[in-house]
């Protein structure tokens, strides 16, 4: 294993994304607490407001980074057979990328 590892960088990324995710999700929760019922139009307008689309795109990116570092750490801790580990890690990576592209498409479709 000669690949240089970036433990500190990942540690920091995990925490920075955590702070953003936490703030955004508490904001989301507060919104739903203040306004539990939506009609389709209200919901659509709320999501597609430009500033919110940007915040959500950032949120998606943060989820991908945070999810990747977290899931990778879990797999490295509990799965020791190299081939199985690589298989699971690539499945996780691919599904995260898939989720990212899908949610990006959802945002773009909704706001155009």
């Amino acid at each position: 294993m000669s690949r240089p590892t970036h433990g500190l960088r990942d540690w920091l990324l995990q925490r920075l994304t955590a702070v953003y995710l936490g703030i955004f999700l508490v904001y989301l929760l507060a919104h739903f607490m203040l306004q539990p019922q939506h009609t389709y139009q209200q919901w659509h307008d709320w999501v597609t407001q430009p500033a919110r689309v940007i915040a959500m795109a950032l949120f998606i990116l943060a989820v991908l980074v945070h999810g990747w570092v977290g899931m990778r750490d879990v797999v490295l801790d509990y799965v020791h057979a190299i081939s199985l580990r690589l298989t699971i890690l690539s499945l996780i990576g691919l599904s995260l990328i898939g989720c990212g592209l899908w949610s990006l498409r959802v945002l773009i479709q909704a706001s155009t």
Partner: protein
Amino acid sequence: MPLCPMRLAFLSCEWYKFARQIKVNMTTQRSVPVYLNLLRIRFPVGAVTSIAHRLSGVLLFLSLPVLIYLLDLSLQSPEDFEKALSYINNCWFEAGLVLIIWSFMHHLLSGIRFLLIDIDKGVTLAIARRSAWLVNLCAPVLALACLWWIL
């Protein structure tokens, strides 16, 4: 030194003795306990919080496609929006949703706890234990409150 047949035989003999010794060591001289009774190991409360942080993280990762699907559906058209709402109000789906929201609340609260500990807040054992209890108990309560309020 060239490898003549005699020497090869000698080497394999040495190798055999070596391998045999390892085998003997492994079978007879093993002094580590191999049986751990998981029911008798008491987990400290902080360990429960920590392992639940991981578990809830994995659950949240697994629930991502479901959540994105609901978002997708809810933004397509008024009919699909109603369909997404009816999914959420389905009792089977709601059971899963309880689990997801509990995971989310636990992940959020214990995450905040870990961040505070990272900046040296609440590091002493007494406070760390108390905050771990607080996180473990508040997460399900907040999750239920959240469900009751929003749905």
